[in-house]
């Protein structure tokens, strides 16, 4: 006899949680009872197993016969059950807070000056500056960026290799654009802001240091070809 078998009331299932992490244990449902096997009989059985509220304790021989503790005559055979590892049989559930905390007042996210240097990912320039640059800009540099023009004759240029022209630079966190030299307070709130204001991520969220922000649909940005820049200006001027 090498293996011990324990039988429990189904109502005591939760007590098996105490031995859930002991390797080798397997359990199975059998009507109103739970059967536990995998307990190797040795001089010292884990005290957590010995403390379980078992209804019956059996010892199993090689022929799957069940012997009651101290008995020499088998009282039955091990039923054919669907045995599962105990870690699967009892899954982990997160506890529910009885008294969840509540924020008494909202936190105002704001842009503050930051000493952390971040690479520029967008540039806000005037249309005249952009046009002048495009007149002689190397094609390979134009190919690296996309742009969108506003009614205020401002051009937003995005890309990882921005042109070296005067303008206001922004750094990027996913779809958020923040003025260079600024960061959110607290910094980790950027993900929450993005989830709240731009859940579909189909826009660029541009924050200005003047506490204003705007949404620019990503579909507004077009490849920066010389003709696109020149024609954009023409259509803009005829509005």
């Amino acid at each position, binding site marked *: 006899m090498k293996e011990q078998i324990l039988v429990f009331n189904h109502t005591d299932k939760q007590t098996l949680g105490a031995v859930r992490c002991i390797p080798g244990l397997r359990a199975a449902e059998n009507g109103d009872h739970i059967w536990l096997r995998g307990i190797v009989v040795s001089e010292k059985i884990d005290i957590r197993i010995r403390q379980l509220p078992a209804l019956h304790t059996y010892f199993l021989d090689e022929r799957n016969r069940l012997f009651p503790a101290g008995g020499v005559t088998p009282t039955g055979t091990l039923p054919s059950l669907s045995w599962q590892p105990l870690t699967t049989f009892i899954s982990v559930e997160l506890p529910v807070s009885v008294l969840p905390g509540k924020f008494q007042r909202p936190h105002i996210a704001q842009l503050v000056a930051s000493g952390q240097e971040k690479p520029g990912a967008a540039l806000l320039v005037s249309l005249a500056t952009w046009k002048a640059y495009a*007149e*002689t*800009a*190397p*094609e*390979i*540099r134009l190919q690296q960026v996309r742009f969108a023009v506003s009614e205020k004759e401002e051009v937003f240029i995005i890309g990882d*290799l921005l042109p*070296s022209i005067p303008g206001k630079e922004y750094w990027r966190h996913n779809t958020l654009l923040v003025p260079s030299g600024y960061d959110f307070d607290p910094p980790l709130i950027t993900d929450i802001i993005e989830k709240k204001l731009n859940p579909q991520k189909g826009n660029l969220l541009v924050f200005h240091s003047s506490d204003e922000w705007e949404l620019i649909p990503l579909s507004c940005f077009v490849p920066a*070809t*010389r*003709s696109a820049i*020149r*024609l954009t200006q023409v259509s803009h001027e005829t509005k």
Partner: protein
Amino acid sequence: MKTVTLTDFITDLTQQGNVTVNATIEPFSEIEKQEACQVLEQYYATTLVDIPHTAPAFLPEAALWGAMLIYRACQSILLRHLTESQVRTYLLPYSGPPSAEAIYSIDLTLRFLPDLMHFAKGLSPDDVLVQLLRNTAQSWPFSSVGVDIEENSDHTTFIRLHPSLKYTYVDRIIQKRDHKRLTHPELYDLVKAALGIHADRFWPELKHVTKDLTHIEY
């Protein structure tokens, strides 16, 4: 079979990049040439928005020469029964004086010369057609970036002195990574300026090219 006019050829070449040519060589009529000039001028107008600065003026006779040369070159590649003298007759050099206007007008169709030479590479290097195409590439460096040629200082001067041609030439040199075209310190400096601090990303091999271009350091 439908006759492919010079106008049809230019339209297909500039709009689709796929061309068809006649199986027999017939002289171009005056009407055909006039219509071709109109199509070339329309195409010239469409290119103006993409070229840096202001493009040189349209020169009809130069543009027409370029289009006819490309048409005849396509025919010469396909019609292998043509004799050497016939090919030489069809691919006569440009007779007008070189100028920025001629360079850009000819380039409207001659910009496809490197692609055409790619098609002709299956021919013998001694083939008269290959020799004539190489001569054309040599004569018109603005249109043949990517083709290995000797320096053509006359044309390079015209290119360098016209801002539109100069910056377009620099764009093409960068696009084709043709370091052998950096034959003048000004061109070398313009390429370096265009790439800026990102030269290693756009053109890593450029760091091995010296400014005097007398040799390549590896």
